[in-house]
């Protein structure tokens, strides 16, 4: 019999009932993070003193505090938290301590959350396995010979190993939903413009969105509604009211329509993944939802579109790492140009260089129309596919990933095959729509499988309510091999 997970709901009720203190919760969390990090390499920094000090201060305040009072959370190392490092998994930002908090950090703190540390990730969030971190790969808590997914692999592993109930990551093409699926937890990517990116280190600015991991749909939704909303420091955030997602959970699913793009469930999908996803579709029928066929005719082009747009934007965003204002600088350059070149050569890893090269190529003189402009046009077609699909359904259901977690080293020599692990997720980033990955059982060799629901713009209430309904009916009973003691 597995003990109940220490969800936000459970921690909050123990705190308000007085059976534990924020300090005790923080001490237990930090202890688990320290104990398991040798096996998982999920954290790049564990802030024991800061977390305990913060928790003690919360215990000292009578009443007060927000929805996350005393709740421990972890933050991906590409999001700024004052007093902690922000390396983005890169040598070029080794030791960098940002002088300000990201907006999402401010909002977590205002809600009473206790940030316990910064999590490992693929360098500058570029990767699908977490093997591109300059600080070593993260291990999957279900099987430490396998990847946790990426790029937010450290946050995913920290939640899956029950160190924290929730964590922040970031998505450009699936970097939260994909590791959530591979680690058997929930991952939510909100609508583009839902959450401020102020203090999130930029990768592909027309795609980037701060995203959330949770042990349960409820945990992820609670954190999302805490960090979402307009921020005048990020001009892309929309002035759209933030609903209370959690209060809309429950009730039956009569009248709900789940769209399934059948063409995406054929070739290239692992047999176990297909079987689990088909079971999830049946589960929705049993819960009273109607399952309808939809088409996303241009979905097959999304990886090609994604790798043009994301690399083009990255080549521009990463121009700022030049050794002048912060971060690493190469030693003894003879002039300014050499300082730029050698700083970047010595500071960036192979995947980041590959993407900067690709992005520079597609934006270079004479190629803009053929690549970037073409990709932005096909992106319009992908967006239209979604708008058409949502005429017929409330949410589109697909596998989150084509396979369960793969072995460390399995895809490192073949960038294109690595890129294809984002085939189901990156279309939501291109269309700007929200998506949530939910665990739906295990493969025959005991690895988690996830499905995702994608909704229309600002459709988080719909997809989160549908995800919660599935999760209540079919919670994942299995637990990873590596996890915090009860």
């Amino acid at each position, binding site marked *: 019999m597995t003990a109940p997970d220490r969800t936000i709901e459970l921690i909050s009720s123990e705190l308000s009932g007085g059976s534990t203190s924020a300090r005790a919760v923080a001490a237990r969390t930090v202890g688990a993070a320290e104990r398991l990090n040798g096996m998982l390499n999920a954290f790049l920094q564990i802030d024991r003193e800061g977390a305990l000090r913060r928790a003690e201060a919360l215990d000292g305040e009578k009443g007060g505090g927000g929805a996350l009072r005393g709740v421990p959370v972890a933050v991906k190392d590409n999001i700024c938290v004052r007093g902690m490092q922000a390396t983005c998994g890169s040598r070029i930002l080794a030791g960098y301590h940002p002088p300000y908090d990201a907006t999402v950090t401010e909002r977590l703190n205002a809600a009473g959350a206790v940030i316990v540390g910064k999590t490992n990730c693929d360098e500058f969030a570029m990767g699908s396995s977490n093997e591109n971190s300059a600080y070593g790969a993260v291990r999957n808590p279900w099987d430490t010979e396998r990847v946790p997914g990426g790029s937010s692999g450290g946050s995913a592993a920290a939640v899956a190993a029950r160190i924290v109930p929730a964590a922040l990551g970031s998505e450009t093409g699936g970097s939260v939903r994909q590791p959530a699926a591979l680690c058997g937890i929930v991952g939510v990517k909100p609508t583009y*413009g839902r959450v401020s990116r102020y203090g999130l280190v930029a990768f592909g*600015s027309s795609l980037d969105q701060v995203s959330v991991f949770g042990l349960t749909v409820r945990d992820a939704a609670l954190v999302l509604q805490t960090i979402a909303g307009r921020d005048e420091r990020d001009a*892309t955030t929309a002035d759209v009211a933030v609903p209370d997602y959690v209060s809309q959970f429950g009730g039956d699913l009569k009248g709900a329509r789940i769209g399934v793009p059948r063409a995406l469930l054929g070739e290239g999908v692992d047999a176990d993944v297909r079987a689990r996803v088909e079971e999830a579709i049946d589960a929705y029928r049993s819960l009273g939802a109607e399952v309808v066929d939809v088409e996303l005719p241009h979905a097959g082009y999304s*990886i090609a579109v994604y790798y043009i747009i994301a690399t083009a934007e990255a080549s521009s965003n990463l121009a700022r790492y030049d050794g002048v204002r912060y971060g690493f600088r190469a030693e003894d350059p003879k*002039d300014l140009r050499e300082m730029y070149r050698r700083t970047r050569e010595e500071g960036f890893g192979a995947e980041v*260089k590959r993407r900067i*090269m*690709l992005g*520079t190529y597609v934006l270079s003189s004479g190629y803009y129309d053929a690549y970037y402009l073409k990709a932005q046009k096909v992106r319009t077609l992908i967006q239209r596919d979604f708008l058409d699909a949502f005429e017929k359904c409330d949410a589109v259901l697909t596998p989150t990933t084509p396979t369960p977690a793969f072995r460390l080293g399995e895809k490192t020599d073949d960038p294109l095959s690595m890129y294809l692990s984002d085939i189901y997720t990156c279309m939501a980033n291109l269309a700007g729509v929200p998506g949530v990955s939910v665990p739906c059982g295990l493969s025959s060799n005991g690895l988690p499988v996830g499905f995702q629901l994608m909704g229309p713009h*600002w459709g988080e209430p719909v997809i989160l309510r549908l995800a919660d309904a599935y999760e209540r009916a079919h919670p994942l009973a299995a637990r990873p091999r590596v996890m915090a003691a009860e």
Partner: protein
Amino acid sequence: MPITESDIRKIAALAHLEITEEELRTLAPQVAAIVAYVEQLNELDTGSVEPAIGGLTPEGERTEAARQDRTRPSLGQALALEQAPEPSHGHFRVPKVIAGSEEKENF
């Protein structure tokens, strides 16, 4: 169009990357393979399609980019320089930029 090692050298120079001979040999075929893959987009006729603008769709255009134009505290010199590799007298120090006549080929 096939991508050659000389193309890769040119792109590296544009991107301010000093790549090694070894990197050149691995990057050239990898970039060529990725470019060949993305060229599948040419199958699609997009003559009458408008490009997507940023991440925004008609549904997502409800952003109000303008904000109140008022002064507010900025980072300040001390904090802005705190993480610099070589701060000096309130500035970011960098190697020599202005070349003598015999060094002009660098610029």
